[in-house]
């Protein structure tokens, strides 16, 4: 039986970690896709029409059917393309564990790490302290609930690993650009280790943004944000 050829399009931006998650997922599954780089100041008609509720990236369009929200997209990819790697374990309890930690990163961690970019002085110091606390919780959680984690090949990568690398893979660039360290081999050894090993995978290297380009972008973006906050 001939396999029907699928048309897959991803609307994203090169800088967005949410967009990165989907790119990594598509590449892990070996799915060919068309990538549309969106300008968030001037979103395409196509994006707005197909994601009218949130008007955000990433947006996956599969054979004309749009799927929005990165985690929803990732689960959709896993259920539609059932080849390896599978993003979720089989056991319901283990699946719940993955969902818990993904949700923790998405909400509790992002909530504070996002602030750091826009703050300085005491406000920033407070956010950094809180971010370090929450990342420590994540680090300990990974150690406790996913001990002896193998990350050697694509098959070892699931939803949690995708979220981790897409979200934290840029931590060194952030450290250089903003001068703040939150993830380190001393304070967060498990998380640091996972990131290092994930970064060695060729599928991750394919979507990696050059370090200097990233540092430059973050510095400029931060300047803009601080200026905006000062003018407000």
């Amino acid at each position, binding site marked *: 039986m001939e396999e029907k050829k699928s048309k897959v399009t991803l609307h994203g931006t090169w800088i967005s970690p949410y967009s990165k998650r989907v790119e990594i997922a598509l590449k892990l599954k070996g799915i060919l896709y068309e990538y549309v780089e969106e300008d968030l100041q001037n979103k395409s008609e196509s994006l707005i029409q197909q994601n009218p*509720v949130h008007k955000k990236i990433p947006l996956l369009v*599969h054979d004309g*059917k749009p*799927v*929005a*929200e990165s*985690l*929803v*997209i990732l*689960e*959709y990819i896993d*259920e*539609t393309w059932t080849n390896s790697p599978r993003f979720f374990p089989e056991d*319901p*309890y283990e*699946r*719940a564990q993955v*969902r*818990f930690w993904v*949700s*923790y990163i998405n909400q509790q961690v992002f909530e504070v790490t996002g602030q750091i970019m826009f703050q300085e002085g005491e406000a920033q110091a407070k956010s950094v302290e809180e971010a370090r606390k929450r990342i420590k*919780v994540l680090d300990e*959680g990974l150690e406790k609930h996913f001990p002896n984690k193998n990350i050697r090949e694509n098959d070892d990568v699931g939803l949690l690993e995708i979220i981790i690398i897409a979200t934290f893979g840029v931590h060194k660039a952030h450290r250089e650009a903003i001068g703040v360290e939150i993830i380190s081999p001393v304070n967060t050894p498990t998380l640091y280790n996972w990131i290092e090993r994930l970064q060695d995978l060729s599928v991750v290297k394919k979507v990696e943004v050059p370090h200097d380009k990233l540092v430059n972008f973050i510095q400029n973006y931060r300047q803009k944000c601080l200026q905006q906050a000062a003018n407000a």
Partner: protein
Amino acid sequence: MANLPILLDYWPSMFGMRARVALREKGVEFEYREEDFSNKSPLLLQSNPIHKKIPVLVHNGKPVCESLNVVQYVDEAWPEKNPFFPSDPYERAQARFWADFVDKKFTDAQFKVWGKKGEEQEAGKKEFIEAVKILESELGDKPYFGGDSFGYVDISLITFSSWFQAYEKFGNFSIESESPKLIAWAKRCMEKESVSKSLPDSEKIVAYAAEYRKNNL
């Protein structure tokens, strides 16, 4: 002999209610334990050390936290009866999208309506009505968000209906006039025993909200 699953919960919590509805939909017998937030139980602190929140479902000694996680877990652990999701991946993605919408847009807005006053409450009302209209448009003429069957999105949203009277009273507006289809949907869902048994009386919720407003605003 297996022990009953234990649900750590708090009676007015719409999030706790989601877990109750899910378990009852599956016909799972469970032990309901009311938590006192001024004196959280050792089991809660041990099972959800990070958030220390309800609901927590403890099944075979292992805890599952976060209401939508619990609902999905219940669906996967007891797959034979009343599946919460359709089988088609695209429709499943749509269900997840809309439950996520409820959590992202609806929950914050509804809290502002009953838990705040003045400008914050007004802003909340606007967001709430906007969210409700979007949800109503998604429901369309279907009996449930899940189509012909009561499903994941229905479970994620129906628990807020026990709070509708409180929203209307403290927000000073009528939900029915903004979205009659949603009210009709809520009534339809309440005909299900899994829902009616899991949601407290609206009057009790109104009293609870009034007490909160008295103490906090």
